Each structure stands twice: as C-alpha cells, then as structure tokens.
C-alpha cells in the first residue's frame, strides 16, 4: 500500500538511524527523531483509529498534545501503556503499537454500522437509552465499552520504578518555545533558580517547525545557543519530556517527567517517570497556542489535518502528509505553511479563504508564488475513504459566512490543511484560579488577571508574532525574577526576526454547506467523542444552556484530549444557538491533568500493602513469631491473636488459653496500650477536667480507671492512670486511640488552658508491658521479684510499685482486665524479651500459657468490661453503659454538660446489656441486629445490635454484649437476632456480667 511520503531531505530526523516498528501487527520503518505519528504518515498510513461512537475511520490530525484521533496502546505485558497519542510517542527500534479501537480491523469495522444508524444516536443517547432501568446499566456498559475500546490496562504488575521529587524554585517556566527560552534566559541571568519544563523531547517549541531565521541564525541553531547558555547556569534546570500537568494552590505545580519511554532498552536503574512537586515563587506560562480546526461536513475524514501539523511534519520530520494539498483558512497563519511547502518544491493545489478580501504580506507572497487563492470561499464537503481524501467541494460564501451563494465545484487533493485561528493554551492559568476572557481579535480565550504569582507570555497570552513573543518572553522572565526577589541584571538582547503585516482573522464556527440544518455530512466538533454540531444544537434546544451541562450531555471535551481542539468551537456554537456572544458562555472548568498521567507516576514509591500505614511491632514480636502466634492488626500494631499448638483450631487454642488463665497463669503482651506521661504541678487538675471521675485525691502509688468523653458527652477513650510521684502521672489509653488522645489533650492544653502547668509526652514505645494473670500470678511474681512485697495488704488492687523483676528495673501495676488476680509489669522496651523469657521459664511448673487478644477479649467480656470502639461507637454515653457511677457530681469535665441534654437524658436510649442465647452453643455474630419478635415482614423495627460475642469456655455457654433500646429495664425478656442467612436466634437479656459478678477473684 505504501508509497513513502518522506521527502528527500530536510527535517531534524537522523536518517542514518533506521528504526523498525509495528503498528497493528504490520512492520514499518522510520528514523530516529520521528514520532509514531510522523513515521506512520511517512509510511502513508492514513487511518489510525476508529471513532468512539460512529466508528468512522480517522487519521492523524495534529502533531502534539492536542491530537484527538491517533490514540494508541504501546508495548505489551507489564509495559503496556494505553491511550497514548501517536503524535507524542518518540519512535525507537522495536516499538509495537496498536490502535485502541477498531475491532476487528481498521479497514473493516463491524461497528461502522453504528455510523449507518447515526440518526438513532443523538446527543444524550446513552443517558436516554441505557440509564433505565438502572440495573441493566452494567450489562449495557460491557458492550458499550467494548465498542468504544479505550485501551486496556496491563494485568501484570508494573516492574518499572517511579519517583517523586520536591523542589522550590524562584521561577518556573512552562514551555520551552521562543517565549519560554527568552524568559529562562532573562530570569537565569538575573540569578534566579529556574526550572523550565517542556513536554517535547527537545526545547524549541514552534521553532522546531519553523524555517524563518532568528537573530541571523537558523531556528535550530538559535535554540541550541540559548539552551547551551542555560545549561551552563548552575541554578537552571531544563526538563524536556516534562509536562506541567497541574497548577494548584499557592503556586504549587506538578511536573510529569518521562525518562525512559523513548528508549529502546532503558537502563533498568533509571526511573521510568518522575513527578516533580514544585513550589515556585513565580511562574511564567509560555504554553503557546493550539490551532483551531474548522467545522464543516465530513471534516473528520482521514486527510483533514491542521495546517500547523502539515508544517511540523514537513519541517521537523521531513514528511509531506500529502502530494496534493488544499488549504482552508480564515486567517493568515496557514499561508506561512503554504510558503514552506512552496519553498520545498511541493505542490499546493489552492488556498480556500473564507475572507472575501484577505490582505497581508504572506498572502501577497503566496499569490506571487502562483498558488490559486479562492477568496470568499469555503469547503462545503470532502470526499475520501480510509486511504485519504480524493477531493474537496468548495462554494462561494456570503460576507457573514452563514450562507452559500454558489457552488464552485471540486478540487482534487489528498490532504486538506485547515486553520480556524489559534487557541492560546490557558489551561494552567485557569487551573491557577484565573478566569480566561474572550478576545474578539483572536476569537478565543486569553488569560485573565492573575490570581496567583503567575504571568502568561507569548502565544499562550495571545501574542502571535515571533518578534513580540521573544520580547514578551524576555520581559516576563526578567520581571518574574525581580518579583521573586532577585536583584541581578536580567536584561537580554532581543534577536532580530522578519515580521509581516498580518490581516485579521474572520471567525467562522460552523461552515454552511448550502443544505438545511442537519443535512449533508456530519460536522464534527469533538473528534474524540464524536460530538457534532447537531448534537450541540439539540442539547441547547433540550435546555442544556450552561456550557458545563452541555459538556456532560454531549461528552464535548470529555475525552483524554480534554477537548483541546474542539472546546472553543463547541462553546461558540452553543453561544450562537443561544443568541449570545461567545465570551458570555464562558469555558468549562479546566482541571488537572493537562494530559493523562500514568498511575505509576502518581503512586511513585508509595506502593505495596505496608506503605501508607507503618507496621508497629512490640519488643517481643519475634518470640511470638517463633512460637507460632497468629497475628491480628490493631491500629498499626501487630498483636498476637492466639497461639495455636500443632493441629489446634482457633477455637481450641482460645479455649485452652482462657482456661489456663482462669485456672493457673496466663501471660499477655500488653505493650501496645497507649502510654502518656503527664507531668507538672497542675496534672491532677488537668486529669480532673479530662476524665469524668475525680483525680484530686489519688495517692502516690495508686491507680484509677478513667473514662474520657468528647465534649458531646460520648465515650471517647478509657484506661488506667496511675500516680507515680508528686507531679507525675502515667496515663494509659486504648491501643487504637493513643495518638488521638494525646493530640486532643494537647489541644485543650494549648488553646483553652495554657495557664495549666502540664506537660505531655508519649511513651508508648518506651515501655514493654506484660500482663501476668491468673490465681498463680502472685506466686510467680514473688519468685521473680524480691524487692516488692506482694501481700494483699502491702500491694492492694489498683496500685503500683517500683522494683526489680528478674533483675530488671520495673514498675509493677496490680490491675486486671481479665477479672483474675493480675500484675502488669513495665520495663524499658529493650529488656522486653529477657523479662518475657524469664517469666516463661519461671512459670513452667505453673503451666504458664501465653494468650492473645482473642482470649483477652473473651476474658474481659465474661466480666462485662467494655472495649471502647467495639462496644461503643461514638454515640454511647457513660449512662448508656451503666457507668453513671464514674461521672463525678462535684465537678465539671469535658462533655459533662452534654449528659443532661434532652437527647442524652432520653429514656429509650440504647443501653449495654448481656445476652445469653437460648441454645447455649450458638454464638451470635457481632453486629447482628436485634428485634423484639421474629420479623414477619421487612423492614422490621430494630431495637439494638450485638457488640461483642464469644463462646465462654469457663461458663460453657455463649455470651454476648449488646446495645438494646431501654435494655436495662428489660432484664429477663427476649430479643431475636435476625441473621442475614434467614436464621433467627432467640436470646435472653441480662446484666452485662457473666463471670464472678462480685469481682472477688481480682481482689484476693
């Protein structure tokens, strides 16, 4: 099929480096310096894509980020990357790419049938047809997505590495074209720390496809001179292949740098992409402009391209996209490309200009070159197929460009180069908070007043002449450096360039075709989403008058190209239908990212299961591992859950651990409880305000259980706090609540009670804590510790003593969470394992049994001790728990006033009760909903739910704690747990205490 469209010489490709690549399974060749798009064009590949909705054949339209059609998937396996623009893919040897749609092939597309059914697929078709009934959507979606074919994410894990950098700079310059280069030069000379990022492989921007001399040099040579000056400046960073994808608050910008995708065999040590997170004092937006297409019948056919793209392919890549080219324009810039073609000895069939009397230097030059110019004409339709255009049909148009006066006939050609003017790239300005304003002269939006420390310059600011861009760039760079506080001399000479007198542009949003509205070939506005003029007009008629609604209804600008080509035309067409000026309608919101960013880059190194939450392990963790513990995550901590013996099930292990503790001796690693040192003369007063009970009378060496509430009166945390010395307390908190409690108490101290002399320090990790529980705990402690008197009188329940356990300095607390006689031994964390092993050895004869969190839960539930966060959920007061006794009457504390609010005084609040199932072997599921009677129909009124539930080995029946409406007054009555599998389990309400209700065992 392919005659090569490569011209004999010219372009900045390296013709000595021949590369082979495959596209949709066919092998082609190109040169180093090509993009995939330029290489495909050189190989005369016209159709690269099938469109989203109608599956029409589409060819390459643009030459950069704006490209809507040539969307491809590159590579395979873990390297596969979907939805890339062929215009931005640098060619390398062995590259494989395929189009992301067009099944089974681009030439024969079954879905092109959709095109025949076109009239049945108007704007909002998907909403109207598929959204109801709702449950069928997922069924439809499968087929719609398959037909749309937007690439496939790889299934394999990504083997590449990605990085993130944080950096500050004085001046960030976005865009390395003539404007950006001058800005960088000026800012750099002034001594600024400069970052200049450009999305292309090399700096130069529009100069890369320019033939006009600059400062007496060829454009490429001039770029090289500037780049080499910048490279020598130590504070200037040049980032090619780097897209500034987002502009956020306070001059925070994100750059996506692609480092290896253009390489055939990248060094595996290289990071594939990097995200630069930049905080810039000043930003210069030299983002350039994107040419605007013209909207006419069948304007989507392969062979219709932007005039600027034709120029780029010729000058930069040495590819002539066609042999017979017709131009269609409403402004002077396309004439520059005509002249480039003429200079290169190529045939230009004609220029069709909508203006009846275009004036300008370039037009004169084209005329003298002998190229016919059809003034006051338009292209009304084009003919062609998958292999390119055959002809365009032209007609005379009236002066207001809305009526065809006479049909003129056809022009034979294979490419139609169009130019409807230029849209400044205002995306980043808009992201920064600026409001783009409509400018009549260029019939597009220009940056509005700056909101952040940014300034636009060059084509991105609506300044199109090269001389003006150079001057504006230099000025922007100089002033940005100044505003960033640099005092160096940022002056630069402005190189001389040839300038032309240009005629003005005549906007035309929809080209008439002489037929009634809706007749003739479709006029496409957004090529990626197949949004047509008819769709926009229909949407407006149906009441979608806001441009944001229009976008969502017609999908205008919704593609991966974000409407870089189509949006301005679309908004102007809507304005026209509504009879408003285009500027009135405004733009849709410009959101990050400017072009798509891979998930790899976004994630960076923050991958895997452990990154976001650090894993915390106790000092004895390795012993637990060596002894077969199963672990459970509690907050960030790994806690032993239970210690199964070989062949033992979880239930069997938990039963053994519970019974051993009740009958003789158990040992628990309790290090994870939060521990906060409280020091200072006002500590007792502080505790008095934080906890509900009174703390002014606690003696040194004694401990007290405390409950803390939020100011809303709801239980927030609990724990035992002990008085170590005169002005010295140690608070314990729940494992999960430790950080929050510390931060919360700090806030009260800093913001509300700064006069209290109290100092808080987290010491959770400093201590290793083990609880030794069971009737034999006193015996083993006496064996291991000789300097503390463990007799009941000398060392009563709820007190603390300092001494030496197994030769290790320790604090020993006599407290109990199991209801047994128990001691908690605290030693410096470094001694944890020696202490643990000493206890294990000493306890052998007493059948000492390590127990995990599951047995701990069973033991405490048998006693009815709550766990905050399990038996409470942020809506539970002390009264709901039956703990009114712990709220002191004689003083205020955080949350106390809320306990007498109307809602917290309510009789029928959910209250903590105990449940015993009628069938003692059935264990209720935690979270089960409770009903007063088995449900006859659903929904049924619910009266509560199960918060904790276990089988009690000591009592040999199941036990549960539950919150039940008015539960305390319902002792002895029945509730029914309605399970999701349909079973109903009856249970009897009782006291939330099952074992040793008189609390005798812990006090012996």
């Amino acid at each position, binding site marked *: 099929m392919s005659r090569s469209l490569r011209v004999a010489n010219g372009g900045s490709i390296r013709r000595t480096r021949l590369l082979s690549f495959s596209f949709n399974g066919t092998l082609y060749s190109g040169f180093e310096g090509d993009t995939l798009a330029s290489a495909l064009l050189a190989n005369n590949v016209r159709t690269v894509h099938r469109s989203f909705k109608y599956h029409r054949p589409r060819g390459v339209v643009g030459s950069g980020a704006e490209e809507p059609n040539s969307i491809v998937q590159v590579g395979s396996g873990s390297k596969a990357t979907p939805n890339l623009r062929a215009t931005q893919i640098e060619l390398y040897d062995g590259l494989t790419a395929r189009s992301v749609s067009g099944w089974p092939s681009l030439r024969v597309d079954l879905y092109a049938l959709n095109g025949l059914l076109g009239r049945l697929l108007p704007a909002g078709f998907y909403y109207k047809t598929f959204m109801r009934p709702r449950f069928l959507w997922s069924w439809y979606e499968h087929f719609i997505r398959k037909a749309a074919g937007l690439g496939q994410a790889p299934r394999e894990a990504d083997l590449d590495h990605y990085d993130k950098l944080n950096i500050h700079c004085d001046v960030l310059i976005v865009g390395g074209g003539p404007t950006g280069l001058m800005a960088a030069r000026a800012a750099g000379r002034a001594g600024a720390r400069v970052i200049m990022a450009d999305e292309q492989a090399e700096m130069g921007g529009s100069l890369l496809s320019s033939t006009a001399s600059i400062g007496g040099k060829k454009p490429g040579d001039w770029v090289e001179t500037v780049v080499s000056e910048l490279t020598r400046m130590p504070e200037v960073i040049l980032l090619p292949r780097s897209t500034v994808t987002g502009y*956020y*608050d*306070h*001059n*925070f910008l994100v750059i996506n740098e692609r480092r290896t995708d253009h390489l055939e065999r990248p060094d595996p040590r290289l990071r594939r992409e990097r995200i630069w*997170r930049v*905080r810039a004092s000043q930003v210069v937006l030299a983002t350039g402009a994107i040419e605007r297409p013209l909207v006419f019948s069948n304007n989507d056919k392969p062979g219709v391209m932007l005039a600027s793209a034709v120029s780029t392919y010729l000058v930069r890549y040495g590819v002539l996209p066609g042999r017979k080219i017709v131009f269609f324009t409403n402004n002077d810039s396309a004439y520059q490309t005509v002249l480039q073609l003429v200079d290169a000895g190529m045939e230009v069939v004609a220029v069709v200009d909508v203006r009846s009397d275009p004036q300008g230097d370039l037009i004169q030059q084209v005329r003298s070159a002998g190229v016919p110019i059809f003034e006051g004409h338009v292209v009304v339709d084009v003919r062609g197929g998958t292999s390119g255009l055959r002809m365009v049909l032209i007609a005379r148009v009236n002066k207001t460009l809305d009526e065809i006066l006479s049909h003129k006939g056809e022009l034979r050609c294979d490419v139609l180069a169009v130019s409807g003017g230029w849209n400044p790239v205002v995306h980043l300005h808009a992201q920064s*908070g600026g409001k783009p304003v409509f400018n009549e002269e260029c019939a597009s939006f220009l940056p509005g007043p700056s*909101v952040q420390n940014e300034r636009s310059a060059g084509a991105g600011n609506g300044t199109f002449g090269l001389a003006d861009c150079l001057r504006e760039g230099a000025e922007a760079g100089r002033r940005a450096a100044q505003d960033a506080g640099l005092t160096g001399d940022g002056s630069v000479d402005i190189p001389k360039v040839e300038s032309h007198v240009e005629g003005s542009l005549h906007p035309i949003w929809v080209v008439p075709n002489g037929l009634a509205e809706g007749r003739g070939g479709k006029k496409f506005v957004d090529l990626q989403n197949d949004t047509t003029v008819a769709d926009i007009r229909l949407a407006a008629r149906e009441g979608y008058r806001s441009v944001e609604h229009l976008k969502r209804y017609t999908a205008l600008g919704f593609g991966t190209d974000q409407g870089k080509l189509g949006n301005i035309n679309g908004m102007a067409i809507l304005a026209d239908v509504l009879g408003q000026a285009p500027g009135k309608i405004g733009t849709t919101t410009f959101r990050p990212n400017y072009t798509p960013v891979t998930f790899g880059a976004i994630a960076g190194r923050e991958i895997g299961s452990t990154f976001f939450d650090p894993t915390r392990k106790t000092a004895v963790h390795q012993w637990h591992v060596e002894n077969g513990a199963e672990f459970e995550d509690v907050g960030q901590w790994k806690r032993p859950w239970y210690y199964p013996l070989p062949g033992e099930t979880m239930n069997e292990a938990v039963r053994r651990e519970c019974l051993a503790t009740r009958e003789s001796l158990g040992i628990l690693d309790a290090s994870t409880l939060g521990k906060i040192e409280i020091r200072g003369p006002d500590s007792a007063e502080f505790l008095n305000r934080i906890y509900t009970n009174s703390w002014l009378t606690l003696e040194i060496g004694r401990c007290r259980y405390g409950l803390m509430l939020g*100011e*809303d009166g709801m239980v927030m945390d609990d724990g035992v706090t002990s008085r170590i010395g005169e002005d010295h307390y140690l608070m314990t908190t729940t494992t999960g609540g430790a950080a929050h409690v510390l*931060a919360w108490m*700090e*806030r009260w101290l*800093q*913001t*509300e009670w*700064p006069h209290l002399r109290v100092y808080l320090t987290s010491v959770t990790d400093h201590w290793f804590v083990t609880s030794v529980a069971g009737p034999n705990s006193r015996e083993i402690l006496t064996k291991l510790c000789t300097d503390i008197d463990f007799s009941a009188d000398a060392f009563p329940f709820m007190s603390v003593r300092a001494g030496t356990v197994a030769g290790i300095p320790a604090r020993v607390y006599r407290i109990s969470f199991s209801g047994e006689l128990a001691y908690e031994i605290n030693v410096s964390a470094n001694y944890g394992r020696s202490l643990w092993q000493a206890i294990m050895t000493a306890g052998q004869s007493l059948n000492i049994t390590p127990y995990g969190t599951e047995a701990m839960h069973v033991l405490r539930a048998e006693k009815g001790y709550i766990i905050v966060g399990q038996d409470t959920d942020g809506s539970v007061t002390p009264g709901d728990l039956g703990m009114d006794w712990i709220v002191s009457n004689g003083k*205020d504390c955080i949350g*106390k*006033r*809320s306990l007498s*609010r*109307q809602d917290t005084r309510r009789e029928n609040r959910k209250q903590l009760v105990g449940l015993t199932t009628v069938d003692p072997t059935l264990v209720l599921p935690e979270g089960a909903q409770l009903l007063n009677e088995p449900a006859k129909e659903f929904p049924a009124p619910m009266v509560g739910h199960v918060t904790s539930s276990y089988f009690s080995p000591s009592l040999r029946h199941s036990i549960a704690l539950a919150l039940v409406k008015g539960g305390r007054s319902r002792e002895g009555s029945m509730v029914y747990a309605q399970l999701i599998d349909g079973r109903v389990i009856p249970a009897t309400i009782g006291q939330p205490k099952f074992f040793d209700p008189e609390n005798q065992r812990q006090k012996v």
Partner: protein
Amino acid sequence: MLEINCPWCGPRDQIEFSCGGEAHIVRPLEPENLSDDDWADYLFYRKNPEGRHHEQWCHTAGCRKWFNAIRNTVTYQFETVYRIGEDLPEKTSR
C-alpha cells in the same frame, strides 16, 4: 497544596498541618449554668463564611503547636497567622 506559615517554624506544606476548624470558640466557664440552646451553640454551631475565616491550625507533623490563622475560604489565601494568646493583628480585628 497550600503553603502555610507556621508562626513557630515558618512556611511549610499543608500536608504537615491539620485544620481544627473555627477559632476563638471559648469554652464556657460554667457549662452547668447554660441552657441547652446555649450549650448547643457552643458545641455544634459554626460559622461557614464565604471569605475571611478565623481558623485554628496545628502543625501536626512539625512542632505540634496550635495557632490561629485568617484564611479566605474562596481564594484559600492566608491573610495572617498568629500564636495562641496573641492579640489579633489590629487591622484584621474580628
């Protein structure tokens, strides 16, 4: 991401901070003497201005100090920051 000027440490990224909501809410000295309505006003009701907002922030991943700030809820610009207990800068008095 905002850049926030901690009055103790200087400008740092927002990721180091947490916002505590409206500033200058004083805990009543004698809550038990308040009506339910007055207590609810202290407990629940917060300003939601479009524009200048007095806020408490904490430099959580830094010096852990709480401080006050005046931030514009529309532009996200910080007008000023000041330490707890410091008077409001005069021009910005409430």
